[in-house]
């Protein structure tokens, strides 16, 4: 139950987005991938989840992979119950495994786990951003995944909703013992959820360590990132 990435390379046209990246995440561990916008963080998640194909390198994963998307990506024509039970209804292997009453029980359990009991009949448009995010958590864990990928889970949320989401990330790790990767650039998400931190710049790893080591700002990269300074080795992409 882990994720192992070896010498991963991905380019879009002439632009190399991920350049020889290697890391490992064990079960029950959360790795935060950080870096400024355009550093290739989300591309790593898309490569691991199989949404895009790598150019070279190795991605070794064990078990089911779930992903929580930046803007929840709930299917807006389906209500909360249908969204969470989507894989259980649509996947042949799972459809045969569970009866409708079992599916109802699972959905109820997962909703309770993210603190949203009783919203089964609501549509995504009737929920707040934070609630949508929690429904997408419930949808992600319904298949009992061994790997959970979070793409900027606290982006666009108010500080209290962010704290709530961070608590659920930690809680899901404890409940599922999954190997998790959180892509973020929010310091609170890094310090409150991550066991290890990996910083990307220009598609390369420029820091790998614990959140405490990141906060100590011992390298020019960590110093610039934590202080959110424009001065330092990392240059922002011009818009």
């Amino acid at each position, binding site marked *: 139950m882990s994720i192992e990435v070896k010498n991963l390379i991905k380019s879009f046209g002439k632009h190399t987005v991920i350049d020889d990246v290697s890391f490992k995440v064990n079960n029950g561990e959360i790795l935060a991938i950080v870096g400024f916008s355009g550093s290739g963080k989300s591309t790593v998640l898309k490569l691991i989840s199989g949404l895009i194909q790598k150019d070279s390198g190795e991605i070794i994963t064990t078990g089911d992979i779930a992903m929580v998307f930046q803007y929840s*990506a709930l299917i807006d024509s389906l209500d909360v119950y249908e969204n969470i039970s989507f*894989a259980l209804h649509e996947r042949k292997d799972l459809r045969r495994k569970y009866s409708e009453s079992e599916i109802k029980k699972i959905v109820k359990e997962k909703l309770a786990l993210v603190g949203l009991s009783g919203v089964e009949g609501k549509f995504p448009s009737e929920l707040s951003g934070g609630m949508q995010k929690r429904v997408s958590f419930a949808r992600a864990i319904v298949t009992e995944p061994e790997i959970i990928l979070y793409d900027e889970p606290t982006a666009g949320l108010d500080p209290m909703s962010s704290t709530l989401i961070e608590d659920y990330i930690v809680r899901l790790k404890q409940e599922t013992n999954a190997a998790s990767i959180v892509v973020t650039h929010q310091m609170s998400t890094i310090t409150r959820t991550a066991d290890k931190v990996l910083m990307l710049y220009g598609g390369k790893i420029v820091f790998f360590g614990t959140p405490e080591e990141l906060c100590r700002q011992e390298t020019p990269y960590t110093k610039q990132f934590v202080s959110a300074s424009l001065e330092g080795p990392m240059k922002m992409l011009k818009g």
Partner: protein
Amino acid sequence: MNTFTLKGTVTYAVFRVLYGHFVSLATTIGDIVRFGTQVIKHIIKGGIDKKVLIEQCSRFGVSSLPITLSIVGMSSIIVSMQVAGEMVKQGAGNFVGLLVAMLIIREDGIIMSGFAIISMIGSSLASEIATMRVTEQIDAIKVLKVDPIKYLFVPRVLSGVLMMPLILVVASVVGIIGGGIAAHLASGLSYKAYFDSVYRGLYLKDMNVAILKAITFGFTIALISCTCGYRATGGAKGVGEATTKAVVWSFVGIVILDLIFSIVFFF
């Protein structure tokens, strides 16, 4: 020594744009063929969600029917009004029904229905799927290990195949009746003479070809619309572009198919 280069010239820019369009056209056609093959395989295998299929059939058939009937009915009335008076004057009143029926069954009914369906349903399918694409809903479906072609394309394309012939039959009946009323009002042609003539003009082969054409058009419109939506990129602009492409390509697609049908069956 000066070296001649095309780069930076208007000619270069024009060829670059044309090349971009050609690549986009080629890849879209490739995707239409690829997804179409997958859809057919899924339909043959079965296991289609009946609830979603009924929803899509209702969307395809019921919601588009008023506009389709209006367009086909009006065009039949216009044709009938234009020709009935002249034909009755020339002593060919007994052929008005035959002409209108043949026109509707062979061409007008199906092409007008196709245009109405593209405008109403094709555009809606494309924008729905394009929105799902740009808001990562399709990515979420993929990560959950559900085949988006089976989940999104199959019920929509199958509803096109099932509903288009029904729409054609209803639209043709309305068109022929509308043509009869128009002929009577425009030239005083009796209903009996008109419908006797319609009966003479209806051939089994024409009707079979019309049904086959309707099935093909329904498949093509839904498939092109879904594919254009699925290939959308970017945000709101991408959704708009995908919808425009779906409408334009579906129009072109059914006109080309219509030409092929005419060559194969009536040439």
